[in-house]
């Protein structure tokens, strides 16, 4: 049998379903649950709630930027909206929804009944609620929300430049989100290492489980560093320590080092699980097994490892030593190697397959196309002279959105369309799913492709208005944002309608071939309590 493809065989009883527990009903069923499927579902709901807010922020920004000299927002409010858009998309949408989907899917894929620490799992989820709420609430306080961008560099975040409580709440909110990530990370790693069903060897795990394992390991190494930096920033503001204050003998550049030591790997926290989803969806709709499974595993681990050696590419303009610049530039370009291995393996997977262009497949193919563009501009930005030229311009905004929208979000959408019937037990309307895809694909390019031009012409990012020379590109970008808005509305309606009155989904709505069917498609939709009547034994 091909590595990485599993066929469930009803085996001997490995573990009995816990008897004698009466299921709770109503709201308490959700509030008190420690079931990974319910927690995963709540993660997905909460993440989409924050996505709607951060998306609305984006729409307001594109309205303000639709033409030069508009006054939709006051400049200081623009800065707050812009900062919260970035923060919410990264920390309260992309990272949690990946955790949510993984929470639902991974235990089933490895043949487990639940996560290793079910109650800790609930704690991880519930920490996100106050985290996001604190940040949102800061919008309505005196002085408004944090307005220093999602990167929150000192000295801009020092007391004298950001006097209100906004930055304090931003720090606290991020601290809670980080704690949620770390606890989740412990849980995932122990689950994947310890709870695999009999016969489920590491190199038989579905690719998605591997990417989750690598991602969660990155979280465990990187997030504590962010937590440390946030603690220093907070004590700088609250108790007058001077970690990042030049006058007190500290160094604001230290924040940048610590922040990017976390936040470059965070890009992989946001993208690797998406790559795992793609690595399952492409085979499923090509009728072929994943090409080069072991190479994919190694490439995933390689990206995770090298990802820790490149943070300095965000700091080429800070005056760091030229030898360091050379190192970071080179290391950043090396990442293209494992990434290239992945892209070629995906192409080889679909090559000669009998492709079925269902909605998840469209999003998966869209992911590849857009992520390649983001990857290529990433290599440009790894070149010091080019980076210094376009530093802090819209070129960087274009690049990061091709990676995080074209990469992470397209993959998330692919994953949601792929697993939603499994999670909800309902089918959705395929036609409107495809409409959503095309509006997203076209709108995404309309919105972010012109930003490359703006950046190369020199339009600075994080500014609430701009010179008339940049107008034409901004008109196009704002029109693209409107297309995206329509697409996302259709997505929301389609999903809600499917939950309300969709047809019942069978165990395997996608008719996987034997080679590509992972364990979750062998149980009912939604899966029974504790996932399996008998723990499967993998041959």
């Amino acid at each position, binding site marked *: 049998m091909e590595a990485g493809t599993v066929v469930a065989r009803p085996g001997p009883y490995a573990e009995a379903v816990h008897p004698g527990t009466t299921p709770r009903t109503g709201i308490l069923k959700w509030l008190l649950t420690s079931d990974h499927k319910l927690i995963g579902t709540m993660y997905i709901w909460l993440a989409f709630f924050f996505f709607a807010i951060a998306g609305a922020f984006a729409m307001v920004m594109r309205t303000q930027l639709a033409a030069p000299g508009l006054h939709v927002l006051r400049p200081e409010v623009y800065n707050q909206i812009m900062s919260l858009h970035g923060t919410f998309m990264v920390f309260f949408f992309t990272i949690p929804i990946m955790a949510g989907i993984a929470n639902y899917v991974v235990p089933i894929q490895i043949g487990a009944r639940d996560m290793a620490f079910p109650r800790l799992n609930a704690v991880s989820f519930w920490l996100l609620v106050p985290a996001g709420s604190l940040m949102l609430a800061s919008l309505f306080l005196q002085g408004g929300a944090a307005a220093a961008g999602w990167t929150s560099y000192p000295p801009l975040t020092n007391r004298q430049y950001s006097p209100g409580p906004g930055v304090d709440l931003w720090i606290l909110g991020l601290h809670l989100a980080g704690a949620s990530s770390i606890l989740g990370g*412990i849980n995932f790693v122990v689950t994947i290492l*310890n709870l695999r069903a009999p016969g489920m060897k590491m190199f038989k795990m579905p690719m998605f489980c591997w990417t989750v394992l690598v991602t969660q390991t990155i979280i465990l190494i990187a997030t504590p560093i962010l937590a*440390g930096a946030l603690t*220093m920033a907070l004590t700088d503001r609250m108790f007058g320590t001077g970690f990042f204050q030049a006058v007190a003998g500290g160094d604001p550049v230290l924040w940048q080092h610590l922040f990017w030591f976390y936040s470059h790997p965070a890009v992989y926290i946001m993208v690797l699980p998406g790559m795992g989803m793609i690595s399952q969806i492409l085979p499923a709709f090509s009728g072929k097994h994943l090409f080069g499974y072991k190479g994919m595993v190694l490439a995933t681990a390689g990206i995770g490892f090298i990802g820790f050696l490149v943070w300095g590419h965000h700091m080429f303009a800070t005056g760091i*030593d*030229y030898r*360091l610049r050379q190192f970071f530039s080179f290391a950043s370009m090396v990442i293209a190697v494992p990434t290239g291995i992945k892209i070629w393996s995906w192409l080889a997977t679909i090559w000669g397959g009998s492709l079925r262009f269902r909605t998840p497949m469209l999003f998966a193919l869209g992911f590849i196309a857009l992520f390649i563009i983001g990857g290529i501009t990433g290599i440009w930005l790894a070149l010091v002279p080019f980076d210094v030229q376009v530093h802090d311009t819209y070129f960087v905004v274009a690049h990061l959105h091709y990676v995080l929208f074209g990469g992470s979000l397209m993959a998330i959408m692919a994953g949601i369309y792929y697993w939603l019937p499994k999670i909800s037990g309902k089918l959705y309307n395929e036609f409107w799913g495809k409409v959503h895809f095309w509006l997203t694909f076209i709108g995404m390019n309309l919105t972010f492709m012109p930003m490359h031009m703006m950046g190369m012409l020199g339009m600075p990012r994080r500014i609430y208005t701009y010179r008339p020379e940049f107008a034409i590109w901004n008109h196009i970008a704002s029109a693209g944002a409107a297309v995206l808005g329509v697409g996302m509305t259709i997505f929301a309606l389609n999903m809600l309608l499917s939950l309300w009155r969709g047809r019942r989904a069978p165990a395997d709505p996608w008719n996987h071939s034997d080679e590509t069917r992972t364990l979750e498609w062998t149980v009912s939709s939604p899966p029974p309590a504790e996932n399996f009547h008998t723990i499967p034994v993998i041959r």
Partner: protein
Amino acid sequence: MKRPSNTLLGAAIGVLVLLMFSFAYANVPLFKLFCERFGLGGQGKARMKGEAASAMSSTTGPIESRNITVSLMGVSASGLPIRFRPSVPSVVTNPGRSVHLSYVFTNMSDDSVHFRAIHSIVPEQAAREFQLIQCFCFEDQSLGPRESRTLPVYFALSPRIPTGIEEMTLSYTLFPRDPKKKLPVPAQEAN
């Protein structure tokens, strides 16, 4: 293979998390040490302190035998009717030796001109070891109609100049100055 218990594995990972959190704080002194060693753009604080303590010590130090060619250049910013050129196109000198040369400035117009010369030194990593002792670029300059004047430059290369550097360039750009306006703060600090 026997798997460790969930609790044991979870606790072990928890220890790793705590270690990484402490590592964030360990970075505070480590970063200071690193900066003192390597500093901003290759210029360590330790070295800067040494210089401040014994200013000009480098020029009075032993003269080294390695040869370094310093090319001299200059351009006028757009609109300035000044022709200027160094007395020699380049000089060959040794670290520790001080050099005296001059630039000739000619006003090509019938009005007085006021200007400021801004210097730049490449390669960057040797720039701090290039010490301008006296320079016309330290002050605003003016020339009467059709006036020609020779202005001096004194400089020395410090013996600490990185080995492997054999060529350097000192170039000036002239910018027009309005003598009635005070300089903005950063330009004053540039002295």
